């Protein structure tokens, strides 16, 4: 029971910290990192859920794996957009007439 409490509790705390980070920080990278931290929090909770005294539930594990892939995809897309925007801003700065 105790490891479950620790993992679950920690997962939620991590999630909450991530949430605060998303809201409170301004920079895109910070926000992205914060979102990933939130994801980690959820994954911790799931893994804690998977743990039973007699056996390990594989379903949460599968969920975590899927979740990770999705998180990677989302992060990559956000980063990509950030990069594009920066490029466009750079363009706008170098061609102020347009």
């Amino acid at each position, binding site marked *: 029971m105790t490891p479950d409490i620790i993992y679950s509790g920690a997962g939620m705390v991590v999630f909450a910290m991530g949430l605060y980070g998303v809201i409170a920080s*301004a920079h895109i990278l910070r926000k992205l990192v914060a979102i990933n931290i939130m994801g980690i929090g959820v994954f911790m909770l799931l893994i804690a*859920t998977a743990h*039973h005294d007699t056996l390990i539930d594989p379903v949460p594990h599968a969920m975590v794996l899927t979740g990770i*892939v999705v998180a990677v995809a989302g992060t990559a897309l956000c980063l*990509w957009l950030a990069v*594009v925007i920066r490029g466009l801003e750079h363009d706008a700065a170098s061609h102020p007439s347009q």
Partner: protein
Amino acid sequence: MFREMSPSFTDTHASTLPRVARVLVASVITAGGAALLLATLRTDKAPPELAVLVSEQLATSGVENPVTAVLLNFRSYDTLLEIAVLLIVAIAMQPHASSQPRIVAPSTNNESATNLVLTSLLRWLIPLSVLVGGYLLWTGAYAPGGAFQAGAVLAAAGVALALTERYQFGWQSAGAQWLISAGLAIFIATGIVSGMVTGTFLQYPVTYAATLILVVEIAATVSIAAILLQLFTRLARADVTSPHTSGASS
């Protein structure tokens, strides 16, 4: 407060939220989190009925690793969609400016080609990565491992290759398109074909389940590797090249 969701690129540290708001947000989140925690801890976990079910049906799934069984048989639909998610991002990040005939072509920048250490390291590292990837893929049927892990390792090899700047990747080429979509395509094809046999989409005949899962996993591995590599190279290149490749319409 949510207006602050608009991303900034200038200051890495500053929060545009005023201090009062930050305190408020923090306290709300703390309170909410505490309530959540309390609710969670005071409620018992449900009995692992599903885990029991998995272990009962594991024999008919075609694999021995329960996680792989869940991922590629019991809940294969999720995995199929997960590959679709990756594919979406890959498509979104595709360049479209020039036609690139080949996936991998020697780079015009030959500076690193002369670097002996790098060259020899890569000669060892890349075959090793392929080997490890293959192993992870195979072992997924019995122990932790599987398509994603294998794909990640393969992609890492690709990243190493990309970092040498000895090769250019033509992500717009027809070959690349086939590569990144192969996983999803073969997954769907398997689902349909097996569905024609069994009458239900994604339902594998028990005797062929292992083989089919392996086919799907191989295809998925290849695509995942290709997509991850594409994500890396696109992000890395976009940082240095002109953003005109981003697809601005005007």
